[in-house]
């Protein structure tokens, strides 16, 4: 072949080689950078899952229309079903109007069974989920009604057959005679509890009455019987007229607001002997009045809206004398004008307020967030409603114009305050750090304080480090500096094996073996702690001072650790055998009982167990890195020190440790990072109770164990789910910080060694 035929082929071949070379470069470069990419992706993804929690709510205008069923009568009540496909409006001219909320198209109108000459003088709704409302009439009667959407599923979609039903009696006997003398009912309250329906009313003369309709289901026939009883309630203090009555769902409490800005709480557990328990002025400014009074979900918190625009939360809190006191809990950003209406949410403890200037606010109590502040119209609003799923908001102005708004309010219950500060929850007498993410009842409010989990994490890591650090660092110094090379080749793989042991095995042994063992042998643990160092020193003395030269020469220097192994075993055996005797001698035969008697709570799975088990997991990490740092101290430094007459121990303390201290520091940091994130040991060897203390005999719940326990059952996309992501992010950030610092310190140290 001539050169001119080879040349192009050769050139082609060279090009092909260069292409291969270049593509290899790109591909390998890609994978190198992908490591950074993976870490960044983790961070960004975790962040993106948590951020939506801290965004406020979205409110967008949807449509406006005139009140379905006529703008000439006033709306006293409005409710939308959970699919936002059917709604009911109850008017003060005795009608219930069912309509489609999207368009306002009327589906059905139903006249309520109230005689034509009787006027509706008052109105009240029970918990929204009960769909129960009461109308007070001017003839002393009350009508209790319940609206039903009666939804059914067909292949075409959902269909509705809405109607009003009568929870007490039927259509003909639905009117309840509450005031026998026929005085107009000026205020009415209604609630359905576990025992049945309760209706409370005040007539225009201020007399308070309570009627109970107890439902009993016969065991024999399965029929439900309603027993009516009526009781006179103690009157309000002289000079005050009732303006609002609230009944709680437990049937224990009746709250009455009066025209003096005061709230009165009645104990009605036994209605026949009901008593006024507490009265309190619930509005701060002197000339202001209470314009709105409403229970939140669960009927524990009371929201008071004032004519001065203030919005305040109250609760009944038991005081030292065991009396329920009306207690101010927190205040919300005030409206510019009088609050006209407060509407609780259906499934959460949030609420909406409307005022005379046409502004709406959406609040959430425990997170202390006001998520929306929006001017809906320039007219005064008299009602505001929200659907059960918090997607649709309807505001009604004085002219009965309806303003529909689309609402997006997914995570109102989360805020910095909830996560990291003391929060005053319902049923408690003050603020506290609580983690309690789920419960059986619907009224339950999840409590998301990360403080107990963070404290638990730090507690677990602290005890683990307390156990591991001395052992690991001392061991590292010894094996890097004093140990004979032969022994070193045996020790290093053993420690690596220690690192490789799965933590699930450490956790299982800690939980199933170590925890019961420690519980049964508490004195042994204490005595090992004291006896072990003493016996080591004793052995050292015996070996170096007492034993004759011949015996000593039998084992060369650098094998001290091997000599000590039998000593340790002996001390351990000795301590466990003596444990019951010590227990009888010092602790009256039962060390655990002794601790309890001295006011120390003792859990079987406690921080001591964690300290040992997790310490075991952390020792090899700290050991390897510090050993590395100590071993790599330049030889000329130590040799110089020894040449100047220092003993080996002096050289270690004054020269080696000093030089290697940054390395040891980063070893401790990395060990700490590992202890913070360890999951299985904590999961298996603690009771996982989120307590806030540092008692070594109590358990804890850590961030990581909490994720492992709760993540599988958290609803995807919910607040709980996102908070668990936040917990993961906190762990990520914490370990990132610790590891990065440690790595930078190590890189510096390496440069220092190189320059020495």
């Amino acid at each position, binding site marked *: 072949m001539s050169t001119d035929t080879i040349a192009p082929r050769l050139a082609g071949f060279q090009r092909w080689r260069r292409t291969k070379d270049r593509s290899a470069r790109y591909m390998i470069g890609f994978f190198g950078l992908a490591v*950074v990419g993976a870490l960044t992706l983790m961070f960004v993804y975790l962040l993106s899952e948590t951020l939506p929690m801290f965004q406020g709510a979205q409110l967008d205008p949807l449509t406006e229309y005139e009140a379905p069923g006529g703008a000439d009568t006033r709306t006293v009540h409005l409710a939308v079903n959970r699919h936002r496909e059917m709604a009911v409006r109850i008017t003060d001219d005795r009608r219930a109007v069912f309509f489609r909320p999207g368009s306002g198209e009327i589906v059905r109108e139903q006249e309520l069974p109230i005689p034509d000459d009787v006027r509706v003088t008052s109105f009240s709704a029970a918990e929204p989920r009960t769909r129960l409302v009461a109308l007070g009439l001017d003839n002393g009667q009350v009508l209790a009604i319940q609206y039903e959407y009666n939804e059914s599923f067909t292949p075409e979609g959902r269909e509705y057959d809405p109607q009003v039903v009568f929870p007490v009696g039927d259509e003909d006997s639905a009117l309840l005679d509450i005031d026998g003398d026929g005085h107009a009912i000026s205020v009415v309250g209604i609630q359905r509890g576990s025992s049945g329906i309760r209706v409370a009313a005040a007539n225009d003369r201020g007399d308070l009455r309570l009627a109970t309709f107890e439902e009993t289901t016969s065991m024999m026939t399965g029929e439900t019987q309603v027993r009516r009883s009526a009781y006179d309630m103690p009157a309000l203090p002289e000079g005050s007229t009732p303006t609002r009555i609230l009944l709680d769902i437990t049937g224990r409490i009746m709250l009455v607001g009066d025209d003096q800005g005061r709230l009165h709480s009645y104990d009605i557990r036994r209605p026949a002997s009901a008593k006024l328990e507490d009265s309190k002025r619930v509005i701060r400014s002197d000339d202001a009045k209470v314009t709105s009074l409403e229970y939140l979900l669960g009927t524990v918190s009371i929201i008071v809206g004032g004519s001065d625009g203030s919005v305040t939360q109250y609760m009944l809190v038991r005081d030292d004398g065991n009396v329920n006191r009306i207690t101010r809990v927190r205040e919300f950003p005030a409206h510019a004008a009088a609050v006209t209406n407060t509407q609780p949410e259906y499934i959460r403890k949030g609420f909406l307020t409307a005022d005379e200037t046409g502004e709406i606010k959406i609040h959430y109590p425990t997170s202390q967030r006001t998520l929306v502040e929006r001017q809906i119209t320039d007219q005064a609003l008299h009602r505001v409603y929200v659907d059960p799923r918090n997607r649709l908001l309807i505001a009604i102005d004085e002219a009965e114009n309806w303003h529909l708004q689309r609402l997006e309010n997914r995570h109102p219950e989360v805020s910095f305050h909830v996560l990291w500060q003391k929060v005053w929850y319902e049923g408690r007498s003050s603020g506290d750090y609580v983690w309690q993410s789920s419960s059986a009842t619907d009224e339950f409010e999840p409590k998301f304080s990360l403080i107990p989990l963070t404290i638990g994490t730090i507690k677990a890591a602290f005890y683990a480090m307390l156990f591991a650090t001395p052992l690991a660092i001392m061991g590292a110094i010894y094996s890097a500096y004093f140990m004979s090379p032969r022994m070193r080749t045996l020790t290093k793989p053993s420690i690596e094996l220690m690192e490789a042991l799965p933590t699930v095995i450490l956790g299982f042994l800690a939980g199933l073996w170590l925890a019961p063992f420690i519980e049964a042998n508490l004195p042994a643990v204490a005595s090992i702690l004291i006896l072990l160092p003493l016996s080591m020193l004793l052995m050292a003395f015996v070996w170096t001072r007492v034993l004759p030269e011949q015996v000593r020469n039998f084992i060369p220097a650098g094998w001290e650790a091997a000599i000590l192994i039998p000593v340790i075993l002996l001390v351990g055996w000795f301590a466990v055998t003596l444990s019951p005797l010590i227990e009888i001698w010092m602790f009256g035969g039962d060390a655990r009982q002794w601790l309890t008697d001295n006011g120390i709570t003792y859990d079987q799975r406690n921080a001591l167990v964690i300290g040992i088990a997790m310490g075991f997991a952390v020792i090899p990490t700290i050991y390897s890195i510090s050993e590395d740092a100590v071993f790599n101290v330049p030889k000329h430094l130590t040799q110089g020190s020894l040449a100047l007459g220092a003993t080996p121990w002096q050289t270690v303390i004054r020269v080696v440790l000093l030089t290697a201290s940054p390395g040891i520091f980063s070893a401790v940091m990395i060990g700490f990072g590992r202890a913070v994130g360890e999951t299985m040991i904590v999961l298996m060897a603690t009771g996982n109770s989120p307590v806030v203390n540092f008692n070594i005999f109590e358990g804890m719940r850590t961030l990581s164990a909490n994720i492992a326990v709760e993540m599988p059952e958290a609803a995807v996309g919910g607040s709980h789910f996102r908070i668990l992501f936040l917990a993961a992010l906190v762990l990520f950030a914490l370990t990132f910080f610790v590891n990065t610092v440690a790595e930078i310190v190590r890189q510096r140290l390496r440069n220092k060694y190189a320059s020495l």
Partner: protein
Amino acid sequence: MNKWFKSGTPWIWLNAGAVATSLVMVFGLILMIAVNGLSFFWPSNVAQFDYQTAQQSEPTRVMGEFQRSETMTAQAMRDAGFDVPEGQEIVVRHLVKRGNRDLDSRDFRWYLEDFMTDREHPRDAVVLERLQWGNFYGFVREFRVDGEAVATGDEARARFEAIIPETRALVRQIEHIERVEIGRINFRIEQIRIALRGIERATDLSIEERAGREEELSAERGELEEQYAELETQRNELRNELRRYTILMETADGAESAIALADVVNAWWPNDMSIPQKLGHYVHTFWEFMTGYPREANTEGGILPAIFGTVLMVLIMSIVVTPFGVMAAIYLREYAKQGPLVRIIRISVNNLAGVPSIVFGVFGLGFFVYLVGGNIDQMFFRDALPSPTFGSPAIIWASLTLALLTLPVVIVSTEEGLTRIGASIRHGSLALGATKAETLWRLIVPLSAPAMMTGLILAVARAAGEVAPLMLVGVVKLAPSLPLDGNFPYLHLDRAFMHLGFHIYDVGFQSPNVEAGRPLVYATALVLVVLIIVLNLTAISIRNHLREKYRADSD
């Protein structure tokens, strides 16, 4: 003395003590797991004794295996509700496995030694391992066929012993029908159901085409259903055959109980066995444990699915992590210029190694399962929705998550191997005109292959022991079917799986009867520990070997 302290010797000894303590802990732990795990398979003798506390007028006769003993203070026992006589200060108590959970719910009980009398080991005491209710301890009294006693006493024992292999074979046949054949039919029927839904949804099909396909699938389904019915009758026949045999047992306290042979997995007379027989039994139970399926909420039976799941997951992970880790290491060592970028990459590698494993689990759940898996379902498995295919925890997501987790292990190890290759080799190759890629591919990679192997083995060891992230991304306590079976496409990456480490957690901490599960937990832990120790020692020895080799080369 003072001088002795000044010399520093005692402090050196204390430091030595720290190493010694660590060593004692490591080997003590491994020894403990080994002893407890291995003794699980040993047919220990069954003891019988009379037990009478101060309150009891009549002694009760108890039979069972002694599990362990404790020395306690009398006071602690009194606090715990035992009636220990006054004046006594120390008591010894024994935990006895009494079995017979169907007759008495407390199958594990503590007995104080002081109240025990007449302890003996009856030669005809039998231990039955059963499908339900755990072990049975007692004596064989009658052997029955079709409800009629055909043999009593020693003859009954002989007949019973002889028929066990036969009944076991029947049980295995039934299991095979249920697990493999009916499983296959169910799998296919499910596929047809999804395919039918797909046809319903498809818009680009003409009416005839649609009807044709539907008919085809329905016909196949009919056929499968027929097969199903056939298998069912076959199974029922086997069951009826099996049900014919029962034995009448008598417990230590004289109660009688009839036990169907269908329920008996194994039977042995430990007090009547010689050491070789016991060894044979030992090997047999060990084999059953390694190859059997779990029973009784995982507290009994074998761990085959867990071993299988662990191995398969680790394999898939290796396929992902090896190229990724090796390339990243090559980049760091061969291509990247020292500078801030390399610093950042190194910090990232260290952080990947340091981020808690549960965080990987959370990331895997959110990113892989819900985001990636959810989108795969939307694109390719619409017909099966709303039940997720890849959008739920699965073995593929577990493997990917662990690949991310073990990436630093591979990188660090490979890098170490690359560092040890002398510059002269690279220079020689480049000087001869090879490109960098060629040098890499022909020289560097083959030379550092053992180091990569070390990294991979260490990664596998790490992954095999990791549990926390798997709890979120794919492990279940009981998987209905293995991720690898005879149904197309054979490897089911979308299935959840069982895992040795999680098995330990589940049986040890989530099961209702922790005491009953304890030996099995130890045995499982032993399997896992042995696996990990072997992997690690292999890696360590490869590495040491390599170091020696390069040391020799450079000399």
